[in-house]
């Protein structure tokens, strides 16, 4: 059986991909990108989980810890995700100011 955490994070990634491919609204597409990022982050953290382990902060009482590396990677990935999102949103605002629309097909028509 596949653990449900993996299934949940893969489902988040896949919903994100679906949004990006199927939707035509730019803000929706960016929501989809953000969802993909969140899904991958959850995936990484679930990979690092150790049953019965505690957070990797050494206070002396525990001996079993979860894997610290995925947590470090996810810290990086979260910040990268928010950076990409901010930049993408500002590009969307720029497009809107130029065309007055958020729909991909209307923007394409505008250019011709």
């Amino acid at each position, binding site marked *: 059986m596949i653990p*449900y*955490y993996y299934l*949940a994070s893969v*489902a*988040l990634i896949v*919903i994100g991909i*679906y*949004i990006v491919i199927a*939707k*035509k*609204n730019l*803000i*929706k597409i*960016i*929501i*989809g990108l*953000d*969802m993909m990022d*969140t899904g991958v*982050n*959850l995936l990484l*953290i*679930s990979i*690092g*989980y150790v049953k019965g*382990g*505690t*957070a990797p*902060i050494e206070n002396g009482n525990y001996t079993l810890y*979860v894997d610290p590396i995925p*947590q470090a990677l*996810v*810290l990086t990935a*979260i*910040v990268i*995700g*928010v950076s990409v*999102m*901010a930049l993408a*949103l*500002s590009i*969307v*605002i720029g497009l*809107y100011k130029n065309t007055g*629309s*958020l*729909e991909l097909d209307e923007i394409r028509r505008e250019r011709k």
Partner: protein
Amino acid sequence: MDLFTLVSLILIIAMLIAAVVAAEIKDLLSAAIAMGIVSLIVSILFYILQAPDVAITEASIGAGLSLAIMIFAIKHTERWEK
């Protein structure tokens, strides 16, 4: 079924429902807020998975600030998807 599994399953189901809402709803503001809820639930899941550092970061950056930025962007553009 122990407490860990129960709580995780409930949260995961809530998260997936919020994700589907974010995908399908026509009101972009609601979609953005649903995305914020997904991030918030994910940050609780991080906490359950013993990653407090990441949970704090996801809650403040992923759920808080990125939602704020998204709302500004919606305010400067349009609220409804066609």
